[in-house]
């Protein structure tokens, strides 16, 4: 069983209302070093198979088709065999 991790974030230039709210909250707590916050999604998938290249290709398709919306979101993924 392989394990995959998918990280989805809003594209640069797309306003992230949640990120802005978290940023303001951190500032109000005195964490002045925080410059920006982007809130995203983290998903963990269990996958059958041992062919890493094949699993990565399939996971890319899953992400493009369903997990992320390529119009507004970017993604990164990792597959561990």
């Amino acid at each position, binding site marked *: 069983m392989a394990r995959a991790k998918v990280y989805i974030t809003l594209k640069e230039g797309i*306003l992230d*209302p949640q990120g802005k*709210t978290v940023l303001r909250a951190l500032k109000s707590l005195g964490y002045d070093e925080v410059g920006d916050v982007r809130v995203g999604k983290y998903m963990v998938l269990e996958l059958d198979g041992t062919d890493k290249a094949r699993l990565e290709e399939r996971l890319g398709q899953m992400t493009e088709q*369903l997990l992320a*919306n390529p119009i*507004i979101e970017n993604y990164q993924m990792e597959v561990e065999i």
Partner: protein
Amino acid sequence: MRFGVVVFPGSNCDHDCHYVIKSVLGQDVDYVWHGSTDVAGYDCLVLPGGFSYGDYLRTGAVAKFSPVMKAVAKHADSGGLVIGICNGFQILLEAGLLPGAIMRNVGLKFICRFVDVRVETTSTPWTSAAHQGQVLRIPIAHNEGNYQVPPDVLVEMKRKGQIVLRYCSPEGSVLQEFNPNGATESIAGICSAGGNVLGMMPHPERASEAEIGSEDGMVIWRSLLAHCGV
């Protein structure tokens, strides 16, 4: 005229749409279950508001894979009329039947209130009974209504007259202070290049009788009936 109101798990404005079409407009209407793959015989398909599939992942992201959506796409591709209201609009975007995407409201709050929207074009089946610049008072009820679209696509949409409704002041001025959700250029409703597919965040079915506060939504329905020669 025959309407089909598509029912997804989690739709909650399906009965409102059915009621308006049947009792106010006096037209034929059926519910179409999301598992159905046949929408033959319907002049207009309505994707109603609600929370299809619990809004999990992203609004409309799971509903776009419902069996019925292939039939809806085929209907739309052959010039058939489709209106997506609120969650229905979100589904049409996810399905790629309309350009762009919807994000969370800028204020992070669910907003349920009347808004004013300005008719930007009367050259669509949905707005032919309006006059250019007419202000409609129709309620919104959404947490994700912040319409976003890549700049190059927006230019093309404007060129083709696909911007149908914009949030505005009661007098019809499009100003940022009257934009409830942060939508790009205050966009509240758009149509396909061919005009046969409409997506809008405001709920015309909640503004179709004077008794409930506004009948401005009737402008949309009356336009549609006139377009179909009813």
